[in-house]
């Protein structure tokens, strides 16, 4: 086996040094009644070439671009990724290292993540960002727990918009179940934004959480939510699934959000069936000691040279044990590095152009569908996705489209029973006018 370098001679020599007669002897400290006597029932080992054939055949059974035209967003977005980003990520000095516990020989990871923290803070308009969380959903759960922690557990209710991604809300519920903390969902208005009026009825609110652009693709009034939260001496938590939108639209920080978190997959990370993505997490400086996750800080070495280290570790589980701000240990470091490469590649000039292009594409598809007679129930402006109401019996059209290798959005009725026949569609820079025209032609024929 090519990953196992010990030859029979090596094994014999080493066993002699150890004083064991054979390999089984090495496990003498495991009591007889704990040992598994049989053979593992696994498929016979494959050669590299057999494995490649097997995996290629499985990959070919997936409805992915370029074979398929996929108009799905909802937290996972198709975007072009420069070849240079893939190439750089292939540097195994990044990928085969671990958490930079030994800073002297980990400066590559450390500087890259320091740059990630900085670019993230700039993108979101916040003062400080951590080194990443697992994904947008767990980041939101941790943000809400952090808000309650900041309130020292005195306020234990969070108000969560119903227009936050339904999966994210489910993850929050899972994290909250054993805590006894309360989650109150805020309804939405006819224009596709969150109805904040319900907040006044709620007592003990630690945080108000919105997503912008929200699950319907609409831009929320974050400033109004922040004002409301601050009037109640609560925190304004903003989450997102499509950070590219902040290349064009106002970021949450400029609208006085206190904690901002979400999914960074759009920033140069392949969709990969939803993971690994990138949980982005940022806040105001004054809350940094309540933040979950790792932080990289700048410092100097013995000779006064600039360098970077893991810092403020006293918040973390390996020092503080059960009183830690979170249990997170491994994060999404390589994805954070990848997004840094991407953000550096698009730059300030590029991200604006790219965001504008996303808006234009989605607006084009929207207007063509409108022209074809379909209703867009939510008027609030959006970015690169939107909800459309298709007529009764659209399921068969949807299947017909699949036959033509077009996936026409996601039905959202399972999450919003009042929205039967409504679909969430997405168009990005990867969708050509011809793709969109084909979709419109097929749904109307």
């Amino acid at each position, binding site marked *: 086996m090519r990953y196992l370098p010990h030859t029979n001679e090596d094994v014999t020599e080493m066993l002699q040094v150890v004083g064991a007669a054979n390999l089984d002897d090495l496990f003498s400290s495991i009591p007889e009644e704990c040992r598994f006597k049989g053979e593992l029932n696994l498929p016979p080992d494959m050669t590299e070439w057999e494995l490649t054939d097997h995996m290629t055949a499985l990959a070919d059974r997936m409805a992915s671009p370029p074979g398929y035209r996929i108009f799905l967003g909802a937290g996972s977005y198709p975007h072009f990724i420069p070849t240079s980003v893939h190439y750089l990520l292939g540097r195994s000095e990044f990928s085969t290292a671990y958490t930079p516990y030994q800073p002297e020989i980990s400066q590559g990871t450390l500087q890259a993540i320091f740059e990630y923290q900085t670019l993230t803070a700039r993108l979101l308009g916040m003062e400080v960002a951590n080194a990443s969380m697992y994904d947008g959903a767990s980041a939101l759960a941790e943000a809400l727990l952090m808000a309650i922690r900041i309130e020292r557990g005195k306020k234990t209710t969070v108000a969560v918009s119903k227009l936050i991604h339904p999966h994210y809300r489910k993850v929050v519920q899972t994290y909250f179940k054993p805590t006894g903390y309360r989650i109150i969902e805020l309804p939405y208005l006819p224009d596709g934004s969150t109805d904040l009026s319900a907040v006044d009825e709620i007592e003990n609110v630690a945080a108000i959480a919105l997503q912008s652009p929200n699950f319907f693709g609409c831009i929320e009034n974050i400033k109004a939510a922040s004002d409301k939260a601050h009037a109640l001496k609560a925190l304004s938590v903003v989450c997102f699934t499509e950070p590219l939108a902040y290349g064009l639209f106002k970021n949450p920080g400029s609208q006085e959000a206190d904690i901002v978190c979400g999914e960074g997959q759009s920033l140069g990370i392949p969709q990969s069936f939803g993971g690994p993505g990138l949980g982005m997490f940022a806040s105001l400086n004054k809350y940094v000691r309540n933040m979950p996750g790792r932080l990289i800080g700048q410092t100097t070495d013995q000779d006064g040279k600039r360098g970077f280290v893991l810092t403020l570790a006293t918040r973390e589980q*390996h020092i503080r044990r059960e009183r830690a701000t979170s249990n997170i240990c491994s994060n999404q470091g390589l994805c954070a590095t990848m997004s840094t490469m991407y953000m550096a590649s698009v730059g300030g000039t590029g991200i604006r152009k790219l965001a504008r292009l996303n808006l234009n594409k989605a607006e084009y598809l929207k207007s063509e569908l409108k022209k074809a007679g379909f209703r867009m129930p939510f008027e609030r402006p959006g970015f690169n996705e939107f909800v459309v109401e298709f007529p009764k019996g659209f399921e068969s059209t949807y299947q017909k489209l699949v036959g033509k290798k077009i996936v026409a959005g996601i039905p959202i009725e399972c999450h919003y029973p009042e929205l039967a026949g409504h679909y969430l569609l997405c168009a990005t820079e990867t969708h050509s006018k011809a793709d969109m025209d084909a979709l419109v032609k097929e749904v109307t024929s």
Partner: protein
Amino acid sequence: MTERAGTTGLIMNEPLLWEKTKPGRMGISIPKSDVAAAPLDPEFVGEGPNFPDLSEVDVVRHFTRLSQWNFGVDTGMYPLGSCTMKYNPKIHEKIAALPGFAGAHPMLPPDLAQGILRIMYELEQFLCEITGMDATTLQPAAGAHGELTAMLLFYAYHKRKGEKRTKILIPDTAHGTNPASAALCGYASIPVTSGHDGVLSVEAVEALMDEETAGIMVTNPNTLGLFEENIRKVAEVVHGKGGLVYGDGANMNAVMGIVKMGEIGIDAIHLNLHKTFSTPHGGGGPGSGPVCVRKHLEPFLPVPRVIKNGDDYALQYNRPDSIGKIHAFHGNFGILIRAYSYILSMGRHLKTASQHAVLSANYIKERLKDVLHLPYDRPCMHECVFTDKNQEDFKITTLDMAKRLMDYGFHPPTIYFPLVVHGAIMIEPTETEPKENLDQFIEAFKVIVKEAAETPELLREAPTAPKVRRLDEATAARKPCLCG
């Protein structure tokens, strides 16, 4: 000694990204617009982020230089204890990047995602077989996330029985994340002291286990690299009081094909695919922390579950006892695919991998125990733990020796962990390190021990070969500079 692995070379300085910016440069090819510009409502428009403008060559050179300041498994021996820094096969990178996988949307209708669902279904089966468990969830994104998932399962299990338990037992030789994971579920951690032989005694558990206690979190093999030989009896005690046994499987690399955790009283175990199953550690992640459980915990697993109907795979959501979702989608699928590929490549050799991992650790233990203090002199599993006790007279610490190892071209072992051993040096060589490298490592350590006695200043000044020397961590924490 023979020639050192570590040497110096030309290393380039490189500023921070924004120190290189030149407005007007761009490192991405913007697609041509084939649609009209949509009107923009100024009420919503912002300024856009202050990102640096760089060309493609600027970006490539920047990250290439940064990469050269890093030490990875591909660079050299990385014996970081409890982290299983084994070799990461290159074919897995190519497979994960196949467009069918890399471009797959997580909310595709299941009939359009059969390839991936089959991989997930089969990987669950493989992990069940390796652990001796009945069902697996692949959703947790890392080991600690798996621990949390397991604690949520425990909570849901007890709740279903109409019980609310408030405590959890955690031995002092368990992994560091365990107490924090339990705390997220509202469990108070009750520490259990391990015996003088480094393993849990049945009596210690018996004395603490009661009907208020949800169960115990056992890392097995434990962080001293020792097999918890009383595990069956410990499990009986815990089960006797209605509790559950959680196995932290971070150290599974020692016992694949040798111990089936489901057969020795463990009710739930998480695996670290980035450790045992060879997926790259990525400078801190992404990992993957599937949780395997016995039958009685299966109803509580996160949704959706991948199920098989005939030849087709589907996703099942309707499971009333499920704890819900722990990840937005299906976990770190890109990592799952690498672990699946690894298991298919290894097959029966997985057992050999564990045997060789244990052999290598014992070999290092035997060859270094004359010069380094070995607190538990008994056969170890896949890692061995020394201390700096022999160097105390020279005022040389574990940290000094670790830093000096860098100058010799090795990544240091895990240091000052586990906490039960003062000045711990925890060495996990893994099965993929050739014997010649193990010998070179042993030789380097012996030279360092000699230096500690004769020229201790070399150690206190170490490292001198890397790009930077010891860093001022105190100032970094006192006056944090977290954003440039």
